């Protein structure tokens, strides 16, 4: 399974902007109609960008409906779901407590109740069961659509990484492979450290998406460690935040990423035809296809 060089992200659609709250709100207003999102996805699609790497935000369900209703238009469209949409859980924990929140998001709260009654002890298989049920609940909106890579979101990945909850990565990877015939992906702000842990639990050549940009913005573990990892480690790198939220001019940003070894894909967000075209052209110019194919074969 190869990944396209350019993947389309979704932060711009949901009021996520790492630079400015004002800009984030303006985007949230612009994209409150699903059609406005579809229009931008169509522009990207017509530029040859056919992978949408999106959070399992409630509103993505409407995008999925649109794609299912127009199968011929989007025949080779791919979703890379990124789960979960963490704020949904965080807000629920504040409102309902840890268990209450878990129960709300489980397709069948009965499992938690049963586990609670069973002497407050969650056996190993219950943790696996809960994890896989939560994944299935998040995947429901993508039914019938092409989801060749399924990502675990960075807040969850990095929380598990910090806790040293290694088995969760294995449980997630196995479930995604077995049930969805998809490749597991991991988004992280701590790429070098995550690679160590994934290697420890035997996840070989993992897809790992992390910030990779010229100014080292949110590249935790340090610029040097990232450079060494790209050079020496066996993994499939997806670069995000390559423009560092606009702090790096586009040409300079893409040119620099293109010079780094072994980056398979770039995920970027844009909401105008101009920016989408421009990014597309810069990637065509600085990251010719051959280099990418070699990386995948390697």
């Amino acid at each position, binding site marked *: 399974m190869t990944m396209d060089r350019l993947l389309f992200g979704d932060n711009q659609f*949901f*009021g*996520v*902007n*790492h*630079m*400015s*709250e004002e800009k*984030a709100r303006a985007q*949230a207003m612009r994209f409150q109609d699903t059609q406005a999102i579809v229009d931008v996805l169509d522009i990207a699609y017509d530029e040859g960008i056919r992978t949408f790497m999106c959070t399992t935000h409630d509103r993505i369900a409407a995008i999925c409906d649109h794609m299912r209703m127009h199968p011929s238009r989007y025949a080779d469209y791919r979703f890379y779901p990124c789960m979960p949409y963490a*704020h949904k859980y*965080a*807000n629920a*924990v*504040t*409102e*309902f*407590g*840890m*268990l*209450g929140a878990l129960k709300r998001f489980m397709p069948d709260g009965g499992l938690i109740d049963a*586990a*609670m009654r069973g002497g*407050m*002890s*969650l056996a*190993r298989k219950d*943790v696996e069961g809960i994890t896989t049920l939560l994944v299935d609940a998040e995947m429901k909106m993508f039914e019938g659509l092409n989801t060749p890579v399924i990502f675990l979101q960075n*807040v969850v990945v*990095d*929380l*598990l*990484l*910090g*806790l*040293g*909850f*290694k*088995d*969760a990565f294995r449980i997630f990877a196995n479930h995604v492979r077995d049930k969805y015939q998809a490749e597991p992906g991991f988004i992280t*702000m*701590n790429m070098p*450290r995550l690679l160590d842990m994934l290697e420890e639990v035997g996840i070989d050549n993992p897809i790992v998406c992390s910030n990779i940009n010229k*100014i*080292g*913005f*949110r*590249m*935790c*573990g*340090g610029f040097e460690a990232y450079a060494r990892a790209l050079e020496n480690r066996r993994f499939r790198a997806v670069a995000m935040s390559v423009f*560092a*939220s606009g*702090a790096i001019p586009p040409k300079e940003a893409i040119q620099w990423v293109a010079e780094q070894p072994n980056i398979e894909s770039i995920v970027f967000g844009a909401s105008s035809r101009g920016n989408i075209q421009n990014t597309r052209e810069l990637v065509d110019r600085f990251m010719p296809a051959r280099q990418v194919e070699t990386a995948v074969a390697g």
Partner: protein
Amino acid sequence: MVKLAVVGLGKMGLSHFAIINAHPLVEVVAVCDATGYLLDVLGKYTGVPTFADYDKMLDAVELDAVVIATPSKMHAKMVRTALERGLHVFCEKPFCLDSEEGAELMRIAAERKLVNQVGYHNRFVGAFQEVKRLLDAGAIGRVTHVLAEAYGPVVLRPKGSTWRTQRAEGGGCLYDYAAHPINLVNWYFGQPSSVGGSVLNPVFSADTDDEVFGTLYFDDGKTAQLSVNWSDESFRKMTTKITIWGTAGRIYADRQECQVFLRDTATIPDGYKEGWNVRYTTELTEPVWFYIRGEEYSAQLDHFARSVEERAAANENSFGDAVMTDRVISMIIADAQDGTRTSAQAAAAAAAAATPRRSKWRGLLSGAR
């Protein structure tokens, strides 16, 4: 190595555990929580020794420091026990529901020379730190007014019941949300001498407030307006912002950016110019060793770990700083209960009492007609 235990594994506790567990100077040697299933899972999957009883944990494990992230009502007792055992303490906010108790803990910590920190993470946000630098440099002249705000989507319907929904337990918008902008105001301007017009309104909650408004008065005539609402779904997540008006300019800051307008009368700091200046998080944020949910959460724990390691006498976000915020919170609760207001009747009475002074204008007004 700093040997540390995390106590209370709710949303904040789990996050603290994960962040500090990755710190090169720290070894998390125990965690403690009342919830059996959680301990069970963490013990089994991460290998950390777990305890359901705080005192038993303190007896059993050799520690240098504790991170306390239990429901607010339990802070005071647990912090006291830790200090009495000579442990350095990082405690979640709000610090103590009774500010006198907080002041005593502050004295104990000082006496025993123990590092004491409270989790007001905004003091580790690059943009808010930039505001502090600008104010300390006198960039916008004499400050006359402050607007301190926080909004977010926590309680959006009338249901759900946890300690966070009970004022008596230290839950509610005032303790959970408003504490943050109040703490920023304290950091920048110290303690207000009084508060007025305080409003603690429920929107959906049965047992606590969902909206907090009020005015903080400072001795030099400066005022701060507080506007906080945790039932606002138009915000994707908690957003804290501060706007400061001075005689020589205005500062606005949130987590992402710091916008500064400087008049030609301003003392222009290095790197700034007259008119508008914008600094973004990408340039204001220092890298951290490990990131989960914002550099500030990592930076505050890094500060704590280093302070413990170096036995630093003074640290950022000390108990003393947090007690100041607790005091303002108590003032707001008292003021909201008191609820003194001015009615139309009272205004008319005041006007009538002032009539003799207005008489000289009468001729002018009738002449104008």
